[in-house]
């Protein structure tokens, strides 16, 4: 019997999967930097260290920024961002499971969690992308300013 913090195989696989989606998206968007983030994120989950996982996610996100700023296709950038956000979410969940359940089983809850978060994230991404498609014609600058102003406020209020 051991009470070590052992992450489940499911958690490792989910992190690898979502991280690869992020890396692939960034690669299609023209940035290879995110590939380095995948092993770091997996290592973070394996060592049950949130700091290392955050480092991996930061590398993935660097890929998103480089792809976005370098004029990559919006679809690729959005896919990369989805992968990045999910990589943190499933990775952190695996770490928390390992901390609270130790060697106990928690795969089912991890899969359900990953499915729920992915569904909502995809839905929001599709909605955002639709607005983007509609609005990509020349818009008044004030609209963008107000949009950013509002989004930052709401996110700050809800996500603290």
């Amino acid at each position, binding site marked *: 019997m051991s009470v070590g913090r052992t992450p489940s195989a499911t958690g490792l696989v989910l992190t690898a999967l979502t991280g690869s989606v992020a890396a692939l998206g960034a690669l299609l968007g023209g940035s290879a930097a995110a590939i380095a983030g995948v092993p770091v994120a997996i290592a973070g989950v394996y060592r049950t260290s949130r700091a290392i996982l955050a480092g991996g996610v930061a590398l993935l996100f660097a890929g998103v920024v480089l792809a976005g700023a370098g004029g990559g296709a919006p679809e690729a950038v959005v896919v990369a961002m989805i992968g990045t956000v999910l990589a943190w979410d499933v990775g952190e969940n695996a770490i928390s499971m390992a901390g609270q359940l130790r060697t*106990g089983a928690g795969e*089912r809850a991890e899969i359900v969690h990953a499915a729920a978060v992915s569904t909502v994230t995809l839905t929001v991404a599709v909605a955002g992308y639709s607005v*983007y498609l509609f609005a990509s014609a020349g818009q008044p600058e004030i609209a963008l300013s107000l949009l950013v102003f509002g989004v930052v406020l709401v996110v700050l209020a809800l996500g603290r």
Partner: protein
Amino acid sequence: MSEREATERLSGSTLGLIVVGSLAVVLAIVFIYDPGLAPAFDPVLLLAYLMPLVGIGAALSLSVNYLRGERSEFDPPLVEYRSTVNVPGTSVDADLAGTTADGPLGRYKRISSVRKRLRTVLDSVLTRTAVAPEDRAATVESGDWTDDRIAAGFFQSSTPFSRSERLRMRLTGEHALVTQARHAIDAIADRLGVTDRDWGSPEQAGARSTVDEGWVGRLSEVDSQIRETGRLRIVTALTLLAVGIGVLLDAGTLVLAGVVGLGPLALRYVGSTPTPQLEIERTIDDTEPDPNGRVRVTVTITNVGDRMGFDLRYLDGVPPGLTVVEGSPRHGTALQPGASTRFAYVVEAERGEHAFEEGLLVSRDASGTVEGVGHLGASGEMRLRCEPKPTGDLSVPVRAKTSPNVGRVVTDVGGSGLEFHSIREYRPGDPLKRIDWNRVARGGELATMQFREEHAATVVLLLDARSDAFVAPERDAPSAIERSLGAIADVFHSRLDSDDRVGLGALGAADCWLAPGAGHGHWALAKRLLTTESAFTEGSDETFYPVLAMGRLRKRLPKNAQLVLFSPLADDTAVSMARRLHAYGYPMTVVAPDATATATPGQTVAHLERRLRLSRLRDADVRVIDWRRSEPLGIAINRAQRRWSR
């Protein structure tokens, strides 16, 4: 969480931010739909640069604070281990490691207390190794007692380290006093001749304890609570960073990508707070196992509510006195209404009656941001009873202090019996068969043969059941109490078989007493006491007053009783109680199961202290049986008997 709390979370400044932000977003969408409505000038152009900077700053501070520990997550106790048992010396290790102290001053105080404790040990060791008490202080101050200058320096006023050594320690983050303490422990152990230690080098801190993985405690110590885990702060940070950088670099795709992060955040607000209704059922494959038998516990969790349980993490209420040896008493799952799941684990049975505690449920909502912790009672089997099974061929030798009743203890009194004792002159009334007819036939005087009389002894077995006596050499090794209970059952049974009168008592906060008696009915009483007394399996939280307990015991003890005390000698009170009872005229034998190890410096200190206690008992003419770890008691008795005088 109640609705009131939910609204509270959204009140005040948060609600204001949301309203203002939403208005801005709505306005922006209106302008996008109909650019004609937008004013020709841009009054909020400043905002377009200010807000991204605010967002990026907030994102950085959120993620840095989160990673620096501004997060909250329930840390469950290690139910796998017994919470009733301590490992002697752990506190010294904690003091040396600095985990118990806050700040450098607190740490220094802790180390000073360790120094004081070591000084006491050193003084005793020096006395035992031929240093006169009046020379002790001088020997310690001069450092002559050891070849190790670092060890000697721990008790001297000046530091033994050179400037370069101090510099090296500062660089490696080593604490000079801690190094000295380790060297001192090493040197004292060498001086006492304790050389077969698991912890070898004074430069190392020794084996890491499994308890570093978490805390050991009872589930009932945990408060029910609901908290925010804050795990999505990183997602918030990613969103703000994407939007901020996107605006600053004029990259629309990045702003678009930032929207993605709103998904998990939204899930946190559409999801309900976790209040699952579960039913737990527990089955045990053998509720009355043999000692050290393996018992399989199967737990079934059923969702009887009408809502989905997204993230359920259950910890079963393993009895505090039992250790899980296989599988895990924890299970994480997601359950639809009506669904159920099952898991199993194996515990090792220890003597006594063990009750399962309430389980603990950690449930999270779909996004994992709200975490509720609550207790959850289980139906089904709640108890596990493990009766002692005496083998019957083990007995602690008793002394020749006996009662007038006939028994099997061979005394030094001449009379009728089997073993020849002496010959004396004939007195009228002596039985004819004991007259030495051979001598008469040779023409001598009438003489009577005497044989050693065989009497019954009155033996009272005492168990040290104070909370200090709940010790084990390792977290999952057999505890001293558990070994004592087994030995007591054996000794009790075998002394009854040899027609002695046997009684049973506990030295502990809870009163427990069985007056000396004989016969098979008496064994049944003792067995019930040994099995059901919760003071033997879980200990007691009440304070133990030695004076009261001794007074109570002396009133009950018959005049001719002799005592056998089962105690790990984990503190000095046990020694003084044993010595005092012996001095009152009750011949004392102490059976001391060894519950100390030598894997760390702290454990070594506890080991040395126990050795010294054994010596102090022997000094007082108390018979001591040093019962080593993983050794049958019979062997320990044989070894001890060799050094006893009759």
